[in-house]
């Protein structure tokens, strides 16, 4: 039973996700100067360059000799996500998350499956770089439904809808959380970047009633293995910091907090 009340974090996430798109679209359509470009590269206030570090890595693998703006932008974005931690990009910025969340919602509730095929994304991550080197083109960018979506919304969609629809149908009909949780190399990249980030979901075992709502609602439910067992931070970097578990918890057993190292999971009081 998912609660029908809309949680705080889902509202915040939609605000950030759509806000970024609106600002980028405004930059294109009305000449706003707050954020111009797209999610591959943009300029914040005309000064701060922001680049997708994974797209940058692919271009470097493809043999492009890149300008300073893009490289600085990639470092800035890397630093932000490394500091935040987990796959914060996936839940808070990625526009495809809107599509896959909708597919998830239409699917309705299911018992968590045993995780399988979740390592495919790391193969895809490796392949992105290898294929970029082999073809001389940023290989994931050439097929990325994420790129098709944000670029399409800002600059015109064309046949990009097919890519987005494919992801939606796959997630809805074939596999829950199929794209984001299994295939997407960008998500895999962010899980590596955010490995040691500071902002994490904290579990307070004392308050937990073991109702299991958080695990059911979590798109990467394996990351919540500590729930009901011990207090501490969710350290698995596949956690997208989406906050669904916090929204759904009736017992104040989950909240965002600074990371606590693994030791406190074992010794943390219950």
């Amino acid at each position, binding site marked *: 039973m998912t609660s029908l009340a809309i949680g705080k974090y889902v509202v915040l996430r939609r605000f950030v996700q759509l806000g970024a798109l609106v600002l980028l679209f405004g930059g294109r359509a009305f000449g706003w100067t707050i954020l111009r470009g797209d999610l591959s590269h943009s300029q914040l206030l005309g000064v701060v360059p922001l680049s997708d570090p994974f797209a940058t890595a692919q271009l470097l693998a493809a043999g492009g000799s890149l300008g300073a703006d893009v490289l600085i932008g990639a470092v800035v974005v890397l630093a932000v996500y490394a500091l935040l931690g987990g796959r914060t990009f996936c839940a808070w910025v990625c526009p495809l998350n809107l599509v896959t969340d909708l597919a998830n919602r239409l699917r309705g509730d299911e018992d968590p499956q045993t995780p399988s095929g979740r390592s495919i994304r790391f193969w895809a991550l490796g392949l992105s770089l290898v294929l970029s080197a082999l073809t001389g083109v940023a290989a994931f960018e050439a097929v990325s439904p994420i790129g098709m979506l944000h670029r399409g919304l800002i600059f015109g969609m064309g*046949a990009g809808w097919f890519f987005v629809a494919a992801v939606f149908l796959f997630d809805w009909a074939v596999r829950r959380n199929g794209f984001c949780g299994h295939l997407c190399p960008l998500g895999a990249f962010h899980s590596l970047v955010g490995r040691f980030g500071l902002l994490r979901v904290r579990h307070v075992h004392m308050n937990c009633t073991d109702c299991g709502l958080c695990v059911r609602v979590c798109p990467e439910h394996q990351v919540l293995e500590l729930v009901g067992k011990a207090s501490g931070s969710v350290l698995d970097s596949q956690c997208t910091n989406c906050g669904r578990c916090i929204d759904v918890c009736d017992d104040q057993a989950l909240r965002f907090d600074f990371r606590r190292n693994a030791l406190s999971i074992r010794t943390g009081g219950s």
Partner: protein
Amino acid sequence: MSSSGGMDRRGFLQGLLRSAAAAAAGGAVWGGFVATTKHAPLALRPPGALAGDAFLSTCIRCGTCVEACPYGTLSLATPGEAAAAGTPVFTPRDVPCHLCQDVPCTVACPTGALARSAVSDETGALDVDRARMGLAVLDRDHCLAAWGLRCDACYRACPLIDKAIVIEHSRNERTGRHAVLMPVVQDDHCTGCGLCERACVTEKASIRVLPRDVVQGRVGDDYVRGWDAEDEGRIDPATPVGSEQGNALDWLNDGEVDHD
């Protein structure tokens, strides 16, 4: 216990091998698709664009150039268009390039896929006339001027008038008493901006911009313009094929050549 450990290791290795094979299969399909997106021989790129493959390995597909263009010339190719999705292109018949003196698209490019140096002179000052986006090609069969009519729309529209397009006079053989005023594109000045294509009055443009790669031939090393001192410089002091000794004259004189 130790045997089950061995089995585990074998199982793990088999699993890894199977995953690698699956990845290779997926990668082959994926790579094949990516390779086809590279093939866009007719795409016209913004001024200063690096040539072909170098452009694709440098452009991050951010659309900054599109936003910088004050004329709405540029767009990002959408999936299904004849250029890699998300890379900037333009269609001169719709909106040509107006050759802004400050080349805002190239200057704005964060990656260098549009290279400032390609639209700058030797001193580093911007000179958009050095852009080589394509080359205008005239279809004489459907050109009104070639029919003998007085049309010089493309010539008048050309921002490098009398340099990139000149008018050549000749006798109109059909009437016997008129002139043909024929627009002729000069390859070494044409920027490929497409203002001529936009201006052409025929239903479908009879002068069109195509990528230089597509239009131009290459002479290669076998022919040299002997009357052009600079071209002559392409000839090294000739060394005959298959001989490491001396110069060509010595080779002619040393009896290896049958003079009968």
